[in-house]
Each structure stands twice: as structure tokens, then as C-alpha cells.
């Protein structure tokens, strides 16, 4: 049998050569990354379905915004969010409460020889959306009337104030090329059949997505020739990649945000996209332990939300006073209760409760568990013993659903967070009477709340809408079933020489990134 020929000398030589090769190759790679106007970003997972009708959401919306036309886009107006027509239209305006007229910019070309963008593409896209998995966004749309090659009217079945903000600015509002989609068989997944935007799109699954300048694009030029998105699923790994200089911008988690805020590295800026998430501690109003509203109110008074924000979120998120997030119509600056453990004890005494054990369910995430522990300590201080039950996503998200079993009957307290769109109607829809046993896990009903919800949909006057949503949140406070916690922000860290553009819900719009 042949003997092993590895000697100490050959081994050392091999190791040295391998190390040197890696060093040289790595250095060359670093140099390459700095060449040209290339923007390096993070992608939190592969884009699975780019078709707006069947997308999963998230980064797929980001891809659509670079490659497909939209009629409207978000714009930040001071601390509030509003909308404006995109460069794809020369006109987008309400003719009346149910008619939105548009005129497309002339000469915008679809790729792959599919000709110019036409009003018929808009009609095809939105008719198609009404039959898609995202049809809910188009419930208010009756039809699209094509009045010319570039002009048309979106006809709503009834006044629906948030239509432009919620539908046209968001992913479902993407317009596809009628002929290209038909040629692709009516649906598409990981490739756009035709693009009409500043970038073309290609992807290597599991590795990266690349947006290259679209040579046929005649609209406003993007700030970068190429955008490369590396697939980095974990936010902490993306933070390391940012520090290693391999991505120019990435999302930050609460811990990293605190670190970057207190001790920012050189040439680093932090931008908050929006705070369209609302977290609360819910209480089951039908549970025998919590049926007495005084017990629920005692819990409201016993929880020190400021401590949760400091302890679990390192003061990186703003305190919540309801379900309407900062920047939206109806956002409140304070709730109708406050931290007052003495009052909590009085309420418990009035209710005749001298020993109470409750279970607090939460997702098994670090911040949530910390928040739960602070609540446990707060409630313990007024004589309520809390057992924390951490749960994985699967059981957590169906524990209040009647169709998923009987767990909803055992629910007592839970920590919940919803994300929303830049209009207050979306957050309120989950708490109407018909949502009891679906998403209204607190299980209360209120006729006034249901009526105000419908009024909020059709009311177009911003002041009147603000009044409606303020009242709806007051009704929620009065149930005693909520302790509002915080609005977690969508925060990005980036190089100071790059100006970023992010939608309120956090989606990045690379076409508007610029070098400064």
C-alpha cells in the first residue's frame, strides 16, 4: 500500500500557499467592489414571485418598484406620509370621490420589444388584480375605463379615501405589460416578462439579485449604474457585512440601532423609514379571570411601558398610544390611561381580586421575551402572578383563531404586533365585530366602532378622518383590553455619501438612491 506523502514541509508550504491565495483573491475582490457606481445592498431572501398578483411581498415589491410602472408613490410630508404622481404619469387626480383620472407619460417602452406603456396595460393589470391573491386591495375598484391610448379613469364602486395610498402606491399597484404577461402564460414567477423602469432584473437563487441600467428607459435616470443585492437572511449577518464594507445599506435590529446611535462608526448614517408597526398586550375580555373590566384596567395601569421601551428596545422605538402609527391621520399623542400601580391596586381591590395568576403568551423573540419579563415584574408588583409562555410563530399566529382549535378559549394575555400600511383604515379593520375569533382576539364588539370604521373608509376630509380614528382608539382604550406598547421603526444604516429612499413600511426604492 502506498504511504502517505504529506510531510511537515509540504504541509506548511500548502497551507501558506492557500492562505496567500485567499489573501490575494480577497484583496482583489475588495478592490473590484469599489469600482464603478455600484450600490451593494442586502436581500433578506430570494424573490420567489415577482408577479404582483401572486407575490409573497416584501422585497418583491422593491423589485417591482424598480422594473414596473406605478401611477403613484409615497412622499414624506414633514412627519406625515402622503402621495404624489410618479414619473410614469403626467396627470393623476380625483375627478370626484369615485373617479380617478390618469394620463401616462408618452414614449415609455417595455423591454423585449413589447412597445410603449399604454392605458390598456393599466386596465389589464388592475382587472387581473381583482382576480388575484391580492384582490382585497382592489375591492373598492369597480373598473378601469380606457379613454385613450395614454388616458383612463379608475372608477371606484364607492368612495374609498385610502385607495391611492394603500393600493396604487403599494406593490399591488404595479402595472404589468398585457401582451408580455399573456405570452408568459398569464402568470410569472422569478423573471419579469417585460420591464418598464430604470433597471432590468436578474437573479441567482440563494445568492443575489442584480438590477442593471435598462438601456431602453427614457425616464429619470437612477443614481447608480448597478444595484447588487446579496441574499443575507439574518439581520445580524447583514450588520456584519455592512461593517465589513460589503453592503452600503442595511436594515438594523433594535440592539444594533442602539449601538449605532450611541457610537456611530465613521461615514455612517442612520435613516428611519417609518414606524408602521404597532405592538400591544392584549387581554381576552371573555376569559373568566379577565371578564371584570376593573381587572383589565388594573393591568393597564400596572404596566410601565417606558421601562419596556428602555429595557427591551434600548429606547429605539416610540411609545404607542393606539393602533394608528406615527405619521398617519388619527395618530394620538397619549392614551386615556397611564402607569399608576397604586390605581391598579385600588382597582383590583374594588374587583375583589387578591390573588390572580395569568399566562402571558409571546413569540419567542429576544425583545418580546424581555418585554414579557418586564410586564411580569410590573404585574407582580401589584399582586398579579404572570407565567410567560414563549411560542414559535406557527402556534402563536393561530392561537386566537376559532377555526384553529380551542386555544382561543384559554387565551389570557398576549403580546402582539401588527404591521400596517400608511393609512389608518387598515389597522382598524382587524377589530370590528366580524373579526372576533379571527384577528380580534380580545373578543369585544362595539356598534359605534363598526359604524366609524365604515365612515372612515368613505370620509375624504383629513380632519374628519382624524376625529373618527381618534374616537375608535378611545373605544379600544375603554374596553380595558389593550396596553399599548410601542411602534417599532424600520431603520436603515448606510454610508453618509449615499442618500436612501425608503417607503414608510420599509421597502427600499433603489432607483431614488443617490450619491451625495
Amino acid at each position, binding site marked *: *500500500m502506498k504511504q502517505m506523502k504529506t510531510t511537515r514541509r509540504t504541509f506548511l508550504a500548502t497551507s501558506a500557499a492557500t492562505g496567500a*491565495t485567499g*489573501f490575494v483573491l480577497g484583496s482583489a475582490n475588495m478592490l473590484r467592489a469599489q469600482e464603478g457606481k455600484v450600490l451593494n445592498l442586502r436581500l433578506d431572501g430570494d424573490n420567489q414571485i415577482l408577479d404582483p398578483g401572486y407575490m409573497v411581498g416584501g422585497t418583491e415589491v422593491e423589485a417591482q418598484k424598480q422594473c414596473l410602472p406605478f401611477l403613484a408613490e409615497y412622499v414624506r410630508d414633514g412627519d406625515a406620509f402622503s402621495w404624489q404622481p410618479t414619473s410614469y404619469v403626467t396627470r393623476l387626480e380625483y375627478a370626484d370621490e369615485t373617479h380617478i383620472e390618469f394620463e401616462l407619460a408618452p414614449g415609455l417602452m417595455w423591454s423585449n420589444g413589447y412597445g410603449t406603456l399604454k392605458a390598456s396595460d393599466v386596465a389589464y393589470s388592475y382587472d387581473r388584480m381583482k382576480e388575484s391573491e391580492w384582490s382585497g386591495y382592489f375591492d373598492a375598484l369597480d373598473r378601469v375605463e380606457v379613454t385613450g391610448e395614454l388616458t383612463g379613469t379608475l372608477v371606484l364602486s364607492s368612495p374609498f379615501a385610502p385607495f391611492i395610498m394603500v393600493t396604487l402606491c403599494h406593490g399591488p399597484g404595479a402595472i404589468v405589460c398585457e401582451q408580455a404577461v399573456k405570452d408568459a402564460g398569464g402568470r410569472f414567477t422569478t423573471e419579469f416578462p417585460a420591464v418598464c423602469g430604470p433597471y432590468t432584473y436578474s437573479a*441567482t437563487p440563494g445568492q443575489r439579485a442584480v438590477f442593471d441600467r435598462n438601456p431602453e428607459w427614457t425616464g429619470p435616470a437612477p443614481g447608480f449604474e448597478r444595484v447588487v443585492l446579496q441574499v443575507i437572511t439574518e439581520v445580524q449577518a447583514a450588520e456584519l457585512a455592512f461593517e465589513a464594507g460589503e453592503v452600503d445599506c442595511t436594515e438594523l435590529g433594535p440592539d444594533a440601532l442602539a449601538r449605532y446611535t450611541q457610537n456611530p462608526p465613521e461615514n455612517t448614517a442612520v435613516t428611519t423609514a417609518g414606524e408602521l408597526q404597532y405592538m400591544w398586550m392584549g387581554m381576552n375580555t371573555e376569559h373568566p379571570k379577565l371578564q371584570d373590566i376593573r381587572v383589565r384596567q388594573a393591568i393597564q395601569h400596572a404596566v410601565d411601558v417606558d421601562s419596556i421601551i428602555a429595557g427591551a428596545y434600548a429606547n429605539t422605538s416610540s411609545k404607542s398610544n393606539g393602533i394608528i402609527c406615527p405619521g398617519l391621520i388619527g395618530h394620538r399623542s397619549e392614551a386615556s390611561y397611564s402607569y399608576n400601580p397604586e390605581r391598579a391596586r385600588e382597582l383590583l381591590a374594588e374587583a375583589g381580586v387578591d390573588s390572580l395568576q395569568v399566562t402571558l403568551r409571546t413569540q419567542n423573540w429576544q425583545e418580546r421575551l424581555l418585554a414579557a419579563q418586564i410586564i411580569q415584574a410590573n404585574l407582580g408588583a401589584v399582586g398579579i402572578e404572570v407565567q410567560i409562555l414563549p411560542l414559535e410563530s406557527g402556534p402563536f399566529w393561530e392561537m386566537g383563531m376559532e377555526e384553529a382549535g380551542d386555544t382561543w378559549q384559554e387565551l389570557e394575555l398576549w403580546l402582539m404586533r401588527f404591521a400596517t400600511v400608511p393609512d389608518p383604515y387598515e389597522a382598524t379593520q382587524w377589530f370590528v365585530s366580524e373579526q372576533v375569533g379571527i384577528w380580534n382576539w380580545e373578543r369585544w364588539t362595539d356598534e359605534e366602532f363598526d359604524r366609524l370604521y365604515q365612515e372612515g373608509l368613505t370620509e375624504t376630509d383629513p380632519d374628519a378622518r382624524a376625529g373618527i380614528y381618534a374616537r375608535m382608539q378611545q373605544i379600544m382604550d375603554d374596553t380595558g383590553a389593550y396596553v399599548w406598547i410601542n411602534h417599532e421603526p424600520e431603520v436603515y444604516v448606510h454610508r453618509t455619501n449615499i442618500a436612501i429612499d425608503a417607503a414608510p413600511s420599509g421597502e427600499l426604492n433603489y432607483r431614488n438612491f443617490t450619491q451625495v
Partner: protein
Amino acid sequence: MLSYLAKRLTLSLIVVALVLMLLFSMLHMIPGNPAILALGTRATPEAIAEYSARMRLDEPVAIQFLIFVGNAFQGDLGTDVFSGRPVTQVIGERVGFSMALIFSGMGWAILLGIPLGCLAAVRPNSWIDRITGVFSVGTIAIPSFLVSIWAILIFAIQLGWLPAIGAGEPGDIGDQLSHLILPAFAIGLGWVGYLARMVRASMLEVLSEPYIRSARAFGLSPRKVTGYALQVAILPTITVIGMGFGGLISAAVFAEIIFARPGVGKMIFDAVSDRNFPILQGGVLLATGFYILVVLLSDLLIAWFDPRVRQSL
């Protein structure tokens, strides 16, 4: 030898079948509606029903299992529920990255660990033996995900020598190799220590055998004696290395997540989170097959090295 191979292959098929049955049972024990998890909490009932039908979640588990096995024998592992692409294609795009990582991780561990173990054994209680001991215990004790993070902090962020994330530019072998160094280092480091300890212990045992004393008495050079001893001492290490390849699939998950590399481990991890059953089933089938294959190869290698094993087959 052929009958031995046939027996092992039959056993391997039984193991694969058992693993798949266990997997199917466990998939249906995972709490949470996979349709809601996959489509999001705001999915419409129609979308949930359509998804369930597409994934055949409404069929009995036994039927799902038989359908999967039947299709798998024809090379069809189903389609990714999100993108609609064949699972074989999705796995095919990633398997090369995993194999490169696993083999390079174990490769450098073998290249360093075995000589270190030999050195320590031929000079017992010397300074090199003590240093090897400390190094071995230290590297075994440090979890590979910590090594990954430290490697990035030191070599990518502080020194800037090596890239931190990704698998490199597609088609650029040099770039891909440079992206492989840190993850391979991270998952292989623990194995260096482990192999060094194993080889040292085996070598010490073999070096005290009478036939080694005889070889020395006949005046064979120390190098030759060490070579003969290693041929015997390496046998248990080969078994461990074979099994270690299976373990590296798990260790690779951390490396693939932290270094943002594509790979089968991360794909399986994501599939569990997304309840993407076809991808999960295909990935587990591949991992099981790979594990069985390397264990079989290591057994055959031992038989090749050791005539006693060959004769007993």
C-alpha cells in the same frame, strides 16, 4: 465484497425510507397552519385553500408519503410552492456550494489535524504535545457559529483580508475560492482539534504494540515506524470522519447563515421556517442520502486499508 455492498445498499434504502416516514410524521406534528405561515397572516381563505390543495395538505399523511416516494423514484421531488420551480433544480443550484464548504472544511481539518495528532503522539508529554492538547480542547469547545463571527470580525472587518459574505461572483472561481476560506475555516476548526485528539490517542495505543517495538528493534527509521502505525491508527478516525461529514451538514447551516452563503443546510432551515414542505422533503432526502453515502464510503475505505475487515465481509 459485492454481497457486502448489496447488503449495505439495501440497508441504506431502508434507512432512507425510515427517515422519510419520520420526516412526514414530524411535519404534521409541527404546530401552526403551514398555509398561514407561508402566505402571511392576512391571507384570504381562498388563497389558503388553494395553497393547501397545491401542497396536497388536504390528503392523508400516508397518501402524501406514497406520492412523494413514487415521484422521488422517478427523479421528481415536486415543485417549490412559492416559485413553482422543480425542487431538483432548487437543490441543484445549492448542492455544489454545500459540498464545496463541507469538503474544504473537513479537508483542511484532516490536513492539519492528523499531522498534529501524529506529532503529539510521537513526542508524548513534549511541549508540542501539550500545545496540541490545549489547542484541541480549545477548538473543540468553541461552537462553530462563534468562530464564524470572530472570523468575520477579525479577517473581514478589522483586517479586511477576506470577504465576509456571499459565495462570490458567479463564474469567477478565484472570487468563489476567496469567499470559501472563512466559512471553511469556521466549520473545520473544531474538527482540527477533534481529529488531532483522536489520532494522538490511537497512535499512542498502536505505538505501544509489540510489532511496533519489533519494527524499531529491526532498525526501521522513526518516520517509517510512524507511517506503519498511522495506517492502523487511522482506521477509527476514518469512521469518525465519515460520520463527521454528516455532522458538517448541520454545522454548515450556521456558516451558511452567518456568511450568507447559499447551501442545502440553509435551504432546509428556511424551508422549515416557511413550511415549504417539498423543499424540506427534498433537502432532507439529499442530506440523508449524502450521509449514508459517506458512511458507506468510509466503511469501504476501512475495508481497503484493513485486510482483516476485508476477510470478514
